[in-house]
């Protein structure tokens, strides 16, 4: 069949299967229908719920502004799908074009979209992770459980890891007058994502709001009482924190286990794809029937040297899903590349934090507006003489301007002056990111090159 006729057939009666029924999966389904896809559409999701929104789980829900089991995403349109909820995809047969479900059933497809996202990294010691009172926060179920326990109220909450999620939970606890200790291996909160200069501001925010922030320490063990409830945590500096609720916020792991052995270029860092969201197989050859979107995807980005970019960003899941859906049912020249500029928001301790670009690539940072001490500023990150990212604390209206600078590769240090530029921001300073060889959790952006499947080839030199 010529390509054009094939795509016409595909739009009319092709079978499309989406694995991962969350933000990216739903927005892709809506886009498919909006663009005229009329064939059967199947949504497979291992959670028993229809697609819901996660960001409110660590914000509005814990602040008591919203119920954690009521964050279902609004639909942009009717998607007329067959829903297979509460059942995981367990395998993929690329040659036969079938997805195998955990209940043994097989679902055939002509086009497949994988949007399986990530899951929270659990506490590594299994018996300790099982203790009553130890939580992670990724799903609606997690949020409902944590929320219930926070209403207790607990005597003290211990948060392990001061990335965005951990910091937001700490903020919500303090808002409700709950005593909270935060333990972070790095020197400050948010260091993996924003570096030490901005991290120092985050540390002040924690402390001023009454968080018992411990940095440069690791939690070495959790201890339960006779009934199996957590009662204390041991820290690497020898101290002990008495606590009845522990939230493990150590970042996320990509949901690719189910693809093992399928031949797809899927590994612990996600699923590699081309700029059009088409997945690579493990040999680095692009497939044309399997697409990926959202937190599970790694795609090359021209602004960042075509390195593979994996993002755990809400906006990326939406934008990438729309591109993937469009490309799935479009022929060659009509396809679009996914070239979204990374953007992220968080809100904690009443401060609105937003970033654009990839701060963690930044070598230096300069404060071009406002000041760090006022907690109202814009920081611009430079990489090899150009602007690579910007972060704002309560200064969101300027961010778009900085996004343009990133998109156009504007020179760094920036020369322009603003009315609110202070002497402290005239010169760039080292952005102070931790040594990349030491993993920090939750930077929410990862740049990586190399083979799609992350397989190691063994080179055997010739013998003489």
């Amino acid at each position, binding site marked *: 069949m010529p390509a054009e006729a094939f795509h016409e057939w595909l739009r009319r009666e092709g079978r499309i299967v989406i694995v991962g029924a969350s933000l990216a999966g739903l927005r892709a389904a809506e886009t498919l229908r909006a663009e005229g896809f009329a064939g059967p559409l199947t949504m497979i999701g291992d959670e028993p719920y*229809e697609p819901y929104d996660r960001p*409110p789980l660590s914000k509005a829900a814990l602040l008591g502004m919203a119920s954690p089991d009521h964050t*279902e995403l609004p639909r942009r349109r009717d998607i007329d799908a067959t*829903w*297979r909820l509460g059942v995981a995809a367990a395998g993929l047969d690329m040659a036969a074009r079938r997805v195998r479900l955990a209940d043994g059933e097989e679902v055939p497809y002509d086009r497949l979209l994988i949007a399986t996202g990530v899951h929270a990294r659990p506490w590594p010691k299994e018996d300790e992770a099982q203790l009553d009172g130890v939580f992670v926060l990724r799903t609606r179920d997690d949020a409902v459980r944590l929320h219930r326990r926070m209403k207790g109220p607990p005597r003290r909450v211990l948060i392990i890891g001061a990335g965005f999620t951990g910091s937001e939970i700490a903020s919500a606890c303090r808002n409700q007058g709950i005593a909270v200790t935060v333990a972070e291996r790095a020197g400050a909160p948010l260091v993996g994502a924003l570096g030490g200069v901005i991290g120092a501001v985050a540390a002040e925010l924690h402390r001023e709001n009454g968080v018992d922030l411990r940095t440069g320490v690791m939690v070495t063990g959790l201890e339960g009482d006779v009934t199996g409830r957590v009662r204390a945590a041991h820290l690497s500096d020898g101290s002990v924190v008495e606590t009845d609720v522990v939230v493990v916020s150590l970042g996320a792991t990509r949901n690719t286990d189910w693809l093992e052995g399928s031949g797809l270029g899927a590994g612990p860092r996600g699923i590699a794809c081309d700029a059009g969201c088409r997945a690579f197989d493990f040999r680095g050859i692009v497939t044309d029937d399997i697409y990926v979107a959202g937190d599970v995807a790694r795609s090359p980005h021209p602004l960042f040297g075509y390195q593979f970019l994996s993002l755990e960003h809400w906006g990326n899941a939406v934008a990438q899903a729309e591109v993937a859906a469009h490309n799935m049912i479009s022929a060659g020249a009509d396809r679009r590349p996914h070239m979204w500029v990374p953007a992220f928001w968080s809100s904690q301790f009443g401060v*609105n934090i937003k970033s654009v670009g990839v701060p963690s690539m930044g070598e230096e940072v300069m404060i071009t507006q406002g000041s760090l001490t006022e907690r109202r500023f814009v920081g611009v990150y430079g990489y090899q003489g150009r602007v690579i990212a910007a972060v704002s604390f*309560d*200064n969101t209206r300027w961010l778009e301007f900085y996004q343009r600078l990133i998109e156009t590769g504007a020179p760094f240090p920036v020369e322009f002056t603003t009315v609110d530029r202070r002497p402290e921001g005239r010169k760039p300073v080292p952005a102070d990111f931790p040594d990349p060889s030491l993993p920090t959790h939750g930077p929410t952006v990862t740049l990586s090159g190399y083979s799609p499947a992350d397989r190691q080839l063994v080179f055997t030199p010739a013998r003489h």
Partner: protein
Amino acid sequence: MRLVVDLNKCQGYAQCAFLAPGVFTMHGEESLVYNPRPGTEQRERVARAVAACPVQAITAEGLDDADEEPVGAGREASDAR
């Protein structure tokens, strides 16, 4: 009614918080917190907030719909479990 705010787009203009204070609240100077599933009695206010948001950051479902049940997985499902 269901809603979601694209907080990448949101500029913290607080229009929504003026128009539907029970649904949208400013937390600090710029952070918006909202209830993603407001009750039907808020429908008119939410509709006004959606229309007034200068950057069209709010997506809502069930605004002009007389029947309260949103398009759910349940309704569409042929074999959800």
